[in-house]
């Protein structure tokens, strides 16, 4: 009886080992996310309507980068996205664009110039705190995101945005 039981157990263990070890090793799935280092703008930078945002960031991945998305939207309600009492008076600007990263890159320096309009839908855009978000994917579908706050305000000197336009 004991022998019989032992052979049953051996078979089971063998079956388990077979199924769990049959195809490991050489190509393990990539679960490592890309990384984002935003060089510009800095947190709490001020940009005037009509000016431009100079975006510069360094992306890297262990295998291969795929694409990135920049998104800018208002944070007037402290990110509750609640309808403010005076919301009908607000005319927030927003921006969003997807960029492809050339194939085969493990690290990539992204640089974009984003124009901040003075008007949207025929009205001046609302000034205040905006959120800038960056999303990066690699070719395996892993994704990383990073956010910072910027101030779109006209009254201040705009020394941050005097770069040359070389593209």
């Amino acid at each position: 009886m004991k022998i019989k039981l032992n052979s049953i157990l051996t078979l089971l263990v063998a079956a388990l080992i077979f199924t769990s070890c049959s195809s490991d090793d050489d190509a393990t799935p990539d679960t490592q996310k890309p990384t984002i280092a935003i060089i510009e703008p800095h947190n709490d930078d001020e940009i005037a309507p009509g000016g431009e945002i100079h975006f510069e960031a360094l992306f890297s991945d262990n295998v291969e980068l795929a694409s990135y998305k920049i998104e800018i939207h208002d944070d007037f309600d402290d990110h509750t996205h609640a309808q403010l009492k005076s919301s009908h008076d607000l005319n927030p600007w927003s921006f969003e664009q997807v960029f492809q990263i050339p194939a085969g890159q493990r690290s990539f320096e992204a640089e974009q110039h984003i124009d901040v309009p003075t008007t949207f839908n025929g009205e001046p855009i609302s000034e205040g705190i905006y959120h800038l978000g960056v999303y990066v994917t690699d070719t395996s579908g892993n994704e990383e995101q990073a956010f910072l706050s910027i101030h779109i305000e006209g009254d201040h000197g705009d020394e941050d945005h005097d770069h040359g336009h070389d593209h």
Partner: protein
Amino acid sequence: MKQTFFVFLVFLAIPSLSLAQDFDLEGEIRDAQNSPLEGAHVHVENSFTLTNAGGYFRIANLPRGTYRMTVTYLGFKSIDTLITMDEDKKMNLRLEEDTSSLTEVVLSSTARRSSSENREVVSQAYIQEQFTGSLAKTLERLPGINSSEIGAGTSKPIIRGLGFNRVAVSENGIKQEGQQWGADHGLEIDAFSVENLEVIKGVGAIEHGSDAIAGVIKIINDRIPMEGFSGEVIALGKTVNNTVAASTNLAYKKDKFFYKIKATGSEFGDYSVPTDNIVYLNFNIPVYNQRLKNTAGKEVDLYGQIGFIDHNYKGTLSLSNVFFKGGFFPGAHGVPSINRVQDDGDQRNIDLPFQQVNHFKLINKNEWFFDKSSLDVILGFQNNHRQEWSRFHTHYAGQTPPATNPDLELDFNLNTFDVQAKYTYNFSPNHTSAIGIQTQIQDNTIGGYNFLLPQYFRAATGIYLTHEYQASNKIKLNIGGRFDYSSIAIEENYDDLLFSYLVNRGQNEVIAARYATRSEEINRDFTNFNLMGGFLYNINSNWDFSANAGTSFRLPTAIELGANGIHHGSFRHEQGDATLDPEKGYVIDTKVNYSNNGFKASVSPYLYYFDNYIFLNPSGVFSVLPHSGQIYKFTQSEAVLTGVELEIEKTFFEKLRTLAVFEYLYNRQVTSSRSRNYPLPFSPPVNGFGEAGYLFMENSKTFNNTEFFINTTFALEQDRIAQTEEITPGYMIFGTGLRTGITAGKFKASLNLQVSNLFNTKYFNHTNFYRALEIPEMGRNIQLMIKIPLNK
């Protein structure tokens, strides 16, 4: 019609009908108070039967001879005796309550197994004593069971890494239909009112149909109470979130009628975490006073039952209502923002955002017992009404708050009707067949200013046949087949505001219209055929072995088929696929048990294979919607899941009780490209539980069954993660406690004091919904439970 039905059954049974010189044995099994015991196991040699509601049993056609007879019943001392059949016999037996046994906690019967199912039986006492905030969380200590938690009061059971719609939960035979598709909705069942519970792992689809892919959690709430008045009152307090809870279970039985009333109320504050800040993405979110803001909640549960028993009929009508209201951590409902988690000085308020669920249930269960057969008819109606409230917000201009309930974000109202019938026939002591039919109709309506789940109507019917054959006194075989037909109609949802927003932002109209179709109109029919087979081999008095193999399935949910848009709980764009097939699983589940003199061990290896496991897969394509990264599409892929569960129990000198439970699990997708064979999401790491208890003060007249215990829960690092998951480090936490019964004159009570996470360790649970937000598990908790029986 009736005739052809019987002919069919006879064909199925391969009966051996030799009746000459055979005798019948019948009798009644009662407890010390003379109340009949329903469901007691009566074995005579290789024949087996269960007692009916009146405690009555009958085994027919026993040839002349001497037989070993055993009677077993949970919580009672077993009877093991020899009987001689030389005439028809009537035996009335009384079972004594088994109070000496400390293992009352988890009553995995020491008697021979009578079914091949991989089953764990849990008593009411266990659930009450181990109560840790919700039913699913309380079951975590069992091998192979984990839970997916959100906050303090809500969690869903996970069996072998499969959760949500992959675990069927039933009460008195009716499947609980809440909103299993989502992670942030719990199981709307009052943990304190559960009378008995069974977890069946592996093959569970034949009697439950869709959703039982991982297994079934069966709640049995129609036990016949003892004659007269009985009841208990429970009070519970917890420090981790200042829980105050009270529960009462009352029952009254006189002659043929019995009545039960159960009620539970609980209220809790924000729970404490051993950390001062949470680092999520590149945000640093402070946790003020180490209390996680807005995780307070309350629950009110009511239960009523009327039962009637007669010699050959038992019927119950049960009515229950579970109401739960609980806050969401604001950071879990949007991009985390520091201002939203500021301490408001109140740890017990439930602020926006919060959820509110009401689950109403009506079950009418009827059982008729005939000489060789029985008929069950069960009717059920359930209403699950769940709302998410969050201050009106919009992601695109132009949306105005609704005139009524402007802060009602999501509103789901699900009505489910069930009709079931099952006819069981004993052809001979060795052959039993059952045929059953089940129909379920679901109607889901939606409301609220946001959109997530479409409106739908679903109808499903299943027919099954099972057969059990006791081949010898050591070997039992069972087979079953089931056919299902179901159809779902999903309504279209088109978002005009989103369309104009996107066009306004410069999108072309075709793309804008595609995004604005939040769900398309979908009509799908599904057919399924499932088979299962199992055997149990009682090798000798110490060893038994069982194996089950079979298929099971899960109907794709309305979200998996039809959703398209941002899910605010997970903050990503999720897209359904109208062409998904039902998920189909193949299971092999085995279990070996050894028991000898206070030592018990079991090993349970298993293997699951899925034709088309449905999961959210990152598409690599960015969504044009604001606040979203790439689109996650519901995709199906072949997948494999395997593992082993171990359980060891040993009692030394009848004083020192030790217990160890261990689980190993491995799973992944099976695709043509090895580099795409990702592990499945929410997979528990290698984990285990160990406890040692010491019984003392055995001679005290005031204190009885006094036990001091220490325990530990551990998990290794989980680095086998799905895309977008985080690696979860391993941990080890400790607990301790004391439980005792008090008798002072006529007054009786039981006391249970325990401390969990004794050292206030900061750790993460890979299967927690909040894991993605880097929110640690609860800190140190001191819990006191007092239970006072009201029996005369």
